[in-house]
């Protein structure tokens, strides 16, 4: 749900940015409205988007914000006002949620690196004026936590492919799903062979802790499940031809124990 909320938020803000008139109707879904309000959705939704039956006020959210250790409400990733504590806050929530894991200290270290790299990528690569977002939620009954980082840029592969045409034509010829796996396996970057270690490092750490990685690109979604050989194309579930949402939307799922 967390990643869906963050993706929906990015989509609505993108449509608004493209001067579309956007109305989101919760007339028969008040529960969803309540949940989205609780996680701070409407605080960062463009004010131009109309919400039915009524846009919630921010007072309730502000009152509860930060009080539930199982939730880190949607955080704005604003390149003009870098929030230096964001990876730390998310990591602390992960540490709290996974305190029963014997490897919680190592997990916290790995989670901080993953979040630091992903959020830094939003600042550095997303090439958009729109804010990115991050959120985290613990699902005790599902024995997992999800941490989602989302931006409204061109998308990971869209910026990578043109550079690969010159740097590595063989890689450029790969299908999207295969190329995406290589991004996390080898560490590919449009800035050349010296770069790209961030995403690879994230994937290596996520694999070490058995995390699943869900990547939504503008028209595709790939779910990577780690096996003995890490993330591989034959353990990836791919959905293509999806409705257009610009950006790179990543979600890691960790087990709680």
């Amino acid at each position, binding site marked *: 749900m967390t990643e869906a909320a963050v993706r929906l938020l990015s989509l609505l803000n993108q449509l608004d940015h493209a001067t579309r008139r956007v109305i989101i109707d919760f007339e028969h879904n008040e529960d969803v409205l309540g949940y989205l309000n609780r996680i701070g959705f409407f605080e960062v939704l463009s004010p131009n988007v109309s919400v039915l039956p009524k846009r919630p006020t921010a007072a309730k959210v502000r009152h509860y914000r930060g009080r539930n250790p199982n939730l880190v409400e949607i955080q704005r990733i604003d390149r003009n006002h870098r929030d*230096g504590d964001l*990876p*730390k806050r998310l990591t602390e929530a992960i540490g709290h949620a996974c305190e029963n894991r014997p490897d919680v200290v*190592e997990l916290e*270290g*790995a989670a*901080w*690196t993953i979040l*630091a*790299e992903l959020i*830094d990528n939003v*600042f*550095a690569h997303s090439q958009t004026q729109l804010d990115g977002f991050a959120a985290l939620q613990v699902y005790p009954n599902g024995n997992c936590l999800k941490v989602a980082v989302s931006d409204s840029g061109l998308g990971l592969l869209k910026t990578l492919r043109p550079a690969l045409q010159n740097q590595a034509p063989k890689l450029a010829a790969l299908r999207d799903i295969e190329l995406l796996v290589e991004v996390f396996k080898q*560490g590919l970057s449009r800035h050349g*062979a*010296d*770069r*790209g*270690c*961030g995403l*690879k*490092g994230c994937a*290596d*750490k996520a694999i070490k802790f058995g995390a699943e990685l869900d990547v939504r690109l503008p028209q595709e979604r790939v779910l990577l499940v780690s096996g003995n050989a890490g993330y591989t194309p034959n353990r990836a579930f791919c959905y293509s031809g999806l409705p257009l949402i610009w950006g790179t939307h990543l979600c890691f799922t960790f087990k709680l124990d």
Partner: protein
Amino acid sequence: MNQIPAVDLRLREFMDANEGWGREAGRLTFQRLMSFVEQHPGALVFRVSLAGVRRVDISFASETIVQLARRYRGGKGFCFVDLIDIDQRENFEAAAQRAKQPLLLWNRQGKPEVLGVEPSQGIADALKFALIKPKARAAEYANSSENVSLTNASTKFKQLWEQGFLLRCEAAAPSGGVEYVYFSAK
């Protein structure tokens, strides 16, 4: 030169916070580090301490110590003296690997470990030889093994120097000429 001139470098003193996050912060820190290195023109070895550094991500590691070691490769060496945090170690290793820049780490037992790049099979033995000595000459290595000629030993040491595993300086040879003395960042 009897003593290799070495300087302690506490990374935390060049950072704005105890967490090193992101490329931009890394580049800023790198500028400060470089200025520090330039203030010590005589120093050949910089002993990097991570005391007070809580975390570093891979991008930050890549833009700071790894970039510094790469920039001064062959002229100055950088080694870690207290890199014990697993996550920080993994991140420096990942960054060094990507930059193909070896970095030495001295563990608690005073034993060296190489991060980032494994020496090729042909030069691994020469590196092992050099790492256990304060200084090593090609002639000493050639004498230590029946299968290694003096020329061969010189070539291996030169490769290790070019690839960033070792440093070197000129010294008077026993024969009266000049030869290279190789040493590690320690």
